[in-house]
């Protein structure tokens, strides 16, 4: 097929001619329209729907400030700590760039947790949005890796010992553990070799994967269309123009709304950057102002706040708790046997897996299972599209007691986060264990509880009050 050049009148504006020239060679206008300009989104979005664009903004902040930090940072065990302070003191506006990056890390997690909460409340992961959710889980994992690798770079005491503790966790894996953690560190302790590889992961490897996943997340979203607080499929109600009657083009309506959200976010973000960059030791831990010393273990090693819920689950897994877990695993196997309509072969396989897991729980020690539980607690969210069997997507049309299930789950998650920064006592460990059971119970029992109760009728149109 011959190439066809679009002919514009001689007196057309130059910009229009240039765009036409590009569009003939690259689908610029089409991309813009498909992805945003003529992307029709439900008109009933609430404040929860701001966090997607805010996450994108923080990603850009992190990348741009990161680039400038790398210009002056030295990934060398002898120079790293001083080079960060050099940025803080001698590089013009270096302090601002560094504080934006350190505050941005925590802001990223706050926004992403809220973004995920939105998905949970309105069932945004349900068919046909499973892949959006899976890409999102991938982004969350990348973010955790990015935060973990980045935290070593200032080479303070918390950086050093935090990395030491987390890498040692891999040592708990039977048979290959010690060699695996040695391989990750590249040395017998966290050292210059570790710093260099973590630097490489932090500035190149993970960001590349992260950006790819973000693009995939957005393409998938704009392919199937956005969910909304009512969980109504707006594509089932098309108007004469072929677009959903309850939808509006993202541009200009969500452009202006997102810009308003950006302004509000930047206000809060700047208040932290300029007035409380350490945020009481939660965003920048005080101990990290002491240079890393491999010979001095700090009295307190606490992970940064965004990891503490999962870290609490690790700590809650004591050898006594293993008995509770073994009972739990066997009971879950029995539940699948008796309360599902699966083919009998699958039922037997599930029971078999449960029995084998229970035996392995007796063989390997609690330390290893703590690591397993911590990993599973992060990964289990990937199952959401397949374990939620509720007839209504949105919490608005679920039975009232479902709200309480979500509230109890949310509170347990927050308690786990709180306990993760506290010293363990017998009482606190017990609370963490109860919260751990609630956390896993929420997901593992979801196939049953999510379809129980009186559901309210889901309307065919979204509920929207004109402003």
């Amino acid at each position, binding site marked *: 097929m011959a190439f066809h050049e679009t002919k514009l009148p001689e007196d057309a504006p130059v910009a229009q001619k240039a765009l036409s020239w590009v569009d003939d060679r690259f689908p610029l206008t089409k991309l813009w329209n498909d992805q945003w300009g003529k992307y029709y989104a439900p008109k009933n979005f609430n404040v929860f729907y701001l966090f997607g664009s805010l996450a994108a903004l923080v990603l850009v902040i992190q990348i741009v400030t990161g680039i400038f930090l790398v210009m002056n940072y030295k990934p060398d065990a002898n120079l790293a700590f*001083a080079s960060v*302070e*050099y940025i*803080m*003191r001698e590089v013009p506006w270096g*302090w*601002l760039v560094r*504080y934006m990056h350190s505050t941005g890390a925590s802001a990223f997690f706050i926004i992403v947790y809220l973004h995920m909460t939105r998905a949970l409340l309105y069932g945004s992961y349900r068919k046909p949005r499973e892949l959006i959710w899976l890409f999102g889980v991938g982004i969350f994992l990348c973010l955790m890796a990015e935060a973990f690798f980045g935290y070593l770079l200032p080479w303070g005491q918390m950086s050093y*010992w935090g990395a*030491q*503790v987390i890498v*040692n*966790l891999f*040592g*708990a894996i*039977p048979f290959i*553990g*010690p060699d695996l*953690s040695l391989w990750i560190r590249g040395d017998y302790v966290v050292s210059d070799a570790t710093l260099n590889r973590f630097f490489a992961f932090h500035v190149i490897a993970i960001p590349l994967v992260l950006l790819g996943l973000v693009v995939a997340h957005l393409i998938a979203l704009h392919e199937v269309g956005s969910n909304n607080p009512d969980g109504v499929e707006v594509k089932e109600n098309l108007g004469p123009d072929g677009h959903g009657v309850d939808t*509006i083009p993202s541009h*200009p*309506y969500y452009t*202006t*709304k997102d*810009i*308003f959200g*950006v*302004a*509000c976010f*930047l*206000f809060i973000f*700047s*208040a932290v*950057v*300029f*007035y409380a960059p*350490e945020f009481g*030791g939660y965003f920048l831990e*005080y*101990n990290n*102002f*002491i240079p890393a010393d491999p010979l001095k*273990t*700090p*009295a*307190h*090693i*606490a*992970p940064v706040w965004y990891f503490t819920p999962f*870290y609490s689950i690790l*700590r809650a897994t004591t050898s006594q708790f293993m008995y509770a877990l073994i009972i739990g695993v066997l009971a879950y196997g029995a539940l699948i046997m008796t309360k599902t309509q699966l083919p009998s072969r699958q039922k037997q396989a599930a029971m078999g897996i449960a029995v084998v897991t229970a035996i392995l729980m007796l063989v390997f*020690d609690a*330390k290893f299972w703590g690591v397993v539980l911590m990993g599973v607690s992060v990964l289990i969210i990937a199952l959401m599209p397949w374990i939620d069997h509720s007839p209504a997507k949105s919490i608005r049309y679920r039975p009232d007691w479902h709200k309480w299930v979500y509230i109890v789950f949310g509170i347990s998650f927050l308690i786990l986060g709180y306990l*993760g*920064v*506290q*010293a*363990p006592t017998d009482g606190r460990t017990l609370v963490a264990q109860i919260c751990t059971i609630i956390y896993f119970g929420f997901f593992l029992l979801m196939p049953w509880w999510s379809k129980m109760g009186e559901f309210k009728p889901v309307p065919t149109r979204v509920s929207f009050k*004109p*402003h």
Partner: protein
Amino acid sequence: MKLMKKLLMVLALLPALSLASEGGYPLDHAPDRSRQMSSLQNGARLFVNYCLNCHAASLVRYNRLRDIGLSEPQIRDNLLFTSDKVGDLMKTAMNEKDAKAWFGAVPPDLSVLVRAKSSSAGSGADYVYTYLRTYYQDDSRATGWNNLVYPNVGMPHVLWELQGVRKAKFVEEKDPHEAGKMVHRFAGFQQVTPGKLSQYEFDSQVGDLVAFMDWMSEPVKSKRQAIGFWVLLLLAFLVLLTWRLNASFWREVK
């Protein structure tokens, strides 16, 4: 066996993995003199005279002290002991080998010490302020000195001439948390020889020194806060503007 050892190592680290409750001597509140140039300058003088002999502040340049109202000639004439260029970093004259032999450890670099010492018990300035004022004579220690905030500290009481020699009184008490155990409770100081300064003057001098160390740990702090005001003002305006802009577009959505 190797696996066991690794596991034990990890397990041994686990209790340390959290913030333990902050026991220890309650911290006094350091006076806020972050905006008093004369205090900061006096603090700089004290720092150079008393601290810099053993400690370095190797992330701070002498000429950064222009930020607290000193001119380069003033810095050169009054504060430059360990080097001869005002653009130099505040290194110490003492070498690490001697330091290890004399004190058992290299005295820590003080550049960001105040930030590092913040905790739930008080700010880093509170910590250093209380620490420098709670030395007491203790003949059981190699240096002859001990400290309430940092028990068995390796550093001697450098400011003893100013404060004078003090002894600490302790009483033995039953441990309220553990039956049958006794605890050593601090019950006041006893002045042995008078210092050059009264207690009030001494506290004030330490206040100046701590104010300087606090400034030194983040020289940009006051500038950061000053800029922050204008940034927030601008953003507040932007919030208002974008709010109305958004509202005007959404008015047509029925």
